[in-house]
């Protein structure tokens, strides 16, 4: 009976110590740096990819008309406001003529004076002609000298030239008046096309320089999206491709459109390619000019090929490749990649066959000596 209490004590001690040491061994080898790395495998699939391009852009109007005076002046009236639709030929506003009317009156007076000058020149010419004829006859009869007759002939020519000059002066003055009148009628700011007023940059009373816009008019039926694509991801971008446009203000809704043209000039600084995408149907209400839009361009579907996820691709020692589990060991297989789609799938041109298993996710960086543990999903990732 004496040994029994010791036995119980020994058993109790063992029942504490043995699990403790077992736990210790487990802890030492199954956690921390010595623990095997959990990995998730995936199969190389035979799939046809529908690659797509993604870019962002802003809504712009294809035709924008900046309407302003052709000379510096003051805005007299401006009857339209932003948001109003106008018709072609509609008078939008007027510039103040300032001294223009006075100048036209002055020109009228100048015109009259020019007419009077013509009459004067005409009279002088008539007199000179009579005198010239008279001296011609006197010269024939020998009552006057050759010199006097020549002087009278010359006087006639001078009078004729003065008359031509006066006539030309009249047409100059007339033209000048016409020019002033043209300017006078050009004081009206007239809409060149049907359109929508988007900006009113000056109010009546403001002085503007020649060429400065007073109102800005757009053609609301010519909206397009000026989209920018990163050059590295713009392969296949071409006119005519269908596009999906998502406006920033309408997160859930997609508009359809197509690529109108790819700009021949790329952005050198931002390393982007520019393209214009037009709506199939312009959204109603019209989206504001300058709104941000995300554009996804769908490229033609490719023939089926071996496809992996881009999460499986690693860069090791200057080579792109994937990790494969061969006979329980990890091996790095270099691959050459083809076209990728926006869902992260990449075609594999060389290095893998359909049905091959590759490592897609791992808990830690892998190397050839990593101990591995294949799981369905990495611990900690909620499905």
């Amino acid at each position, binding site marked *: 009976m004496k040994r029994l209490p010791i036995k119980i004590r020994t058993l109790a001690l063992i029942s*504490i110590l043995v699990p403790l040491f077992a736990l210790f061994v487990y802890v030492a080898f199954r956690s921390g740096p010595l623990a095997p790395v959990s990995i998730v495998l995936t199969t190389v699939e035979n799939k046809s990819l529908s690659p797509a391009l993604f870019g962002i852009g802003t809504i712009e109007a294809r035709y924008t008309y900046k309407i302003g005076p052709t000379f510096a002046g003051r805005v007299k009236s401006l009857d339209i406001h932003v948001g109003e639709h106008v018709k072609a030929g509609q008078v939008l506003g007027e510039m103040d003529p300032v001294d223009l009317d006075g100048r036209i009156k002055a020109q009228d007076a100048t015109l009259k004076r020019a007419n009077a000058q013509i009459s004067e020149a005409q009279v002088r010419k008539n007199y000179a002609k009579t005198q010239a004829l008279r001296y011609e006859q006197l010269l024939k009869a020998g009552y006057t000298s050759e010199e006097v007759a020549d002087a009278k002939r010359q006087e006639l020519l001078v009078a004729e030239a003065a008359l031509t000059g006066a006539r030309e002066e009249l047409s100059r003055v007339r033209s000048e008046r016409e020019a002033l009148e043209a300017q006078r009628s050009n004081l009206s700011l007239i809409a060149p096309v049907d359109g929508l007023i988007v900006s009113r940059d000056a109010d009546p009373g403001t002085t503007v320089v020649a060429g400065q816009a007073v109102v800005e008019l757009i053609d609301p039926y010519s909206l397009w999206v000026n989209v920018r694509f990163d050059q590295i991801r713009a392969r296949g971008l071409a006119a005519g491709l269908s596009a999906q446009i998502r406006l920033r203000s309408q997160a859930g809704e997609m508009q359809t459109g197509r690529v109108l043209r790819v700009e021949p000039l790329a952005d050198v600084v931002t390393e982007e390619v520019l393209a214009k995408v037009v709506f199939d149907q312009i959204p109603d209400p019209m989206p504001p000019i300058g709104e941000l839009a995300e554009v996804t361009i769908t490229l033609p579907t490719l023939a089926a090929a071996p496809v992996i996820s881009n999460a499986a691709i690693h860069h090791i020692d200057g080579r792109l490749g994937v990790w494969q589990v061969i006979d329980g060991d990890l091996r790095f297989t270099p691959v050459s990649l083809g076209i990728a789609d926006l869902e992260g799938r990449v075609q594999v041109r060389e290095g893998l066959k359909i049905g091959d298993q590759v490592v897609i996710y791992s808990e830690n960086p892998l190397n050839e000596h990593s101990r591995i543990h294949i799981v369905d999903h990495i611990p900690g990732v909620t499905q």
Partner: protein
Amino acid sequence: MINLAGRDIMHSWGKFVFTAMGLGLLIGVTLSMAGIYRGMVDDAKVLLDNSGADLWVVQKDTLGPYAESSSIYDDTWRGIRGMQGVDQTANITYLTMQVRKEARDVRVMVTGIAPGEPGTPGWPPYLVAGRQITRSHYEAVADIASGFKLGEHIQIRRNQYTVVGLTRRMVSSNGDPMVFIPLKDAQEAQFLKDNDAIREQRRRTAENPAFNQPGVPALLDAVIASQSTNPYVNAILVRVETGHDPEEVAESIRRWKRLTVYTRSQMEEILVGKLIATSSKQIAMFLVILSIVSSVIVAFIIYTLTLGKIREIAVLKLIGTKNRTIVGLIVQQSIALGLIGFVVGKISATLLMAPIFPKYVLLEPLDSVLGFIAVIMICVMSSIIAIRVALKVDPAEAIGG
């Protein structure tokens, strides 16, 4: 010959085991502290590893991009790409900020990665779920420690990003989880002020007569447009072609491009030696103090355990037990104590303490081995005092008391 130590432990095993457990928790805290220190250093190193770069090209005379701010033009990479020995270059931006997700916000390091294919320097080298970024805007890959989930939308500045992939152990040198977003978005995020500030800036510009000249109406627009661009990145990551010496390539970039270039070892020196120097020294100091306190406590425990047995030891001496046997008893007991304590400590540090720390705790096997040796040595050494007491005991005490 019976084992005296074993018999004695058996005699009062409950007390012994619980003492060992208590000691174990203390050792566990010490190991965790070592783990925190290692974790800090490791955070700095994984930051460098994960960038996948051999060289960091930064603004001249700065310690960027991690230890100091650095900004260089985002087209500088073109000149560097053409240099001999350069295999790949990639722009990168880093910005530590609070990222909003619904009601809460998380402190993360937003990393802007250059467009390209997986394996481009700066890209997360491995994922635990989802996929890498494919769109050049509004997608994010987040570290799992940020708590973001696949498919979630997170708000960085004014844009919403969809989390398309998750990765692990991608942290800044402070241990903040990283969120990878496309470079252009990151440049914008780094630069973009709030709308109020932008309007104020426009107003200020418009009020400046130099920029708002009545005769040149388009000048103001041009000035404002030039104010709202950010052609800068924080660094260029360079991958050196195999067969070239990174130091040589770095030297030629320094010489011809007049930029500061760091190699991997220099960067590590900056991060470990400068950036986390004080905080890691703080932890290291704490570790030292904790170790000293632990050893003192171990010494006390063994001393009191021995004092508790002083009468029994006197009896042993009385019946003529050799000193060696008594020394053996004490030493064996203290080693057993240390052993159990270490095992409990290691288990508690790994399973209980490490996971609850918000920052990474790296329990290196080598540290554990060193810790084990230290524990055993401390136990042996602290038993010396107990042995002195035990050997000095007068056998008469067994009778007298």
